[in-house]
């Protein structure tokens, strides 16, 4: 057993490939036999992986020593690298055509998320402008939250709350996207670009689209990748200032 553990921890990344292969294989079987192909295997695998993450702590399954390699395979390096590789199948013309809608969706996505986050936080009893800004920023993505919160000097428990809201957003996006894709007409590269701009959480958008239709991934990722930057730009500056004028 010691030998086995040592072998795995030395080859963590390779073991992660094996694990993911097993998860996807099991999902394929479930998709085919239990769900009769109605739920795509990728969606089952992603939801299954989220459930498995419950066995760990803050890093999900990677908190358990022998599964630590999953954090490398699922880290931002491999995520961004493989997302870029999907651009091989994307057409530049389609990105150009959705350009205006993409930019608009980015601004609307950040603004609406912030405003709605602030309104809900206010309704839940938060009145301090810094607290509200940190939570509103967290409603954008779990990266915008802490960056904004730290920049304006919000308290750490409110920053943590903002991050959590962002994590919830990522997970809800991952799970819901394949289920509602048809209803919200998320079937074209054009709509995928709008979707990426509106939702903005790169991990949620790309995971959700991967479970919906792999062809759409590069388009959604394209706009989503600008969202966090825009959020970090607007939240601690203009939005914070406006909120201060409004409530301060």
């Amino acid at each position, binding site marked *: 057993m010691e030998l086995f553990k040592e072998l795995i921890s030395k080859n963590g990344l390779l073991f992660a490939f094996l694990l993911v292969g097993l998860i996807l294989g099991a999902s394929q079987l479930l998709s085919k036999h239990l769900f009769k192909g109605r739920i795509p295997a990728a969606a089952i695998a992603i939801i299954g992986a989220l459930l498995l993450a419950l066995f760990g702590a803050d890093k999900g399954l990677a908190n358990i020593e022998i599964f630590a390699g999953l954090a490398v395979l699922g880290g931002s390096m491999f995520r961004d690298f493989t997302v870029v590789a999907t651009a091989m199948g994307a057409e530049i013309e389609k990105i150009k055509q959705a350009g205006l809608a993409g930019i608009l969706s980015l601004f609307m996505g950040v603004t609406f998320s912030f405003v709605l986050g602030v309104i809900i936080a206010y309704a839940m009893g938060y009145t301090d402008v810094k607290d509200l800004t940190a939570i509103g920023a967290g409603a954008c993505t779990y990266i915008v939250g802490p960056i904004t919160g730290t920049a304006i000097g919000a308290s750490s428990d409110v920053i943590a709350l903002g991050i959590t809201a962002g*994590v919830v957003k990522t997970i809800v996006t991952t799970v819901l996207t394949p289920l509602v894709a048809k209803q919200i007409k998320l079937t074209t590269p054009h709509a995928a670009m709008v979707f990426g701009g509106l939702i903005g959480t790169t991990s949620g958008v790309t995971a959700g689209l*991967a479970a919906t239709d792999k062809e759409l991934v590069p388009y959604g990722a394209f706009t989503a990748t600008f969202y966090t930057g825009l959020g970090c730009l607007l939240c601690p500056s203009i939005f914070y200032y406006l909120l201060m004028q409004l409530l301060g």
Partner: protein
Amino acid sequence: MKIYGVALLVFCFLIGKYLGGLLAELIGISGDVGGVGFAMLLLMFANGFLKRYSWYEVQTKAGVFFWSSMYIPVIVAMAATRNVHAAISGGWTALIVGVAVTIMGFMLVPLLSKIRTTKEESDGII
């Protein structure tokens, strides 16, 4: 050779990330803004360029396609390493904010998708 494709992909990735880092620095935040987007654009341009001069070999392309097909496995690994506990136990405010904001985003998709750049297919020049 497949390695040419992989090398090209890494080249685009690093340049894109670098540009993203520069843009972030310009704005005054740490990290990278749009790095993945820049890298994707570069790869698409490189793709068109190589195609035009027919320098692309099937094997070169296969090097890139391998990594694009690893995309879903990577996402599965990512999902398995999320802090799901925090999402569940973060209290009602975090939960309501996260869910409401996402659903609102979903509902706006069909509305904003109606906006189209009026220009029809251009001459196909990349």
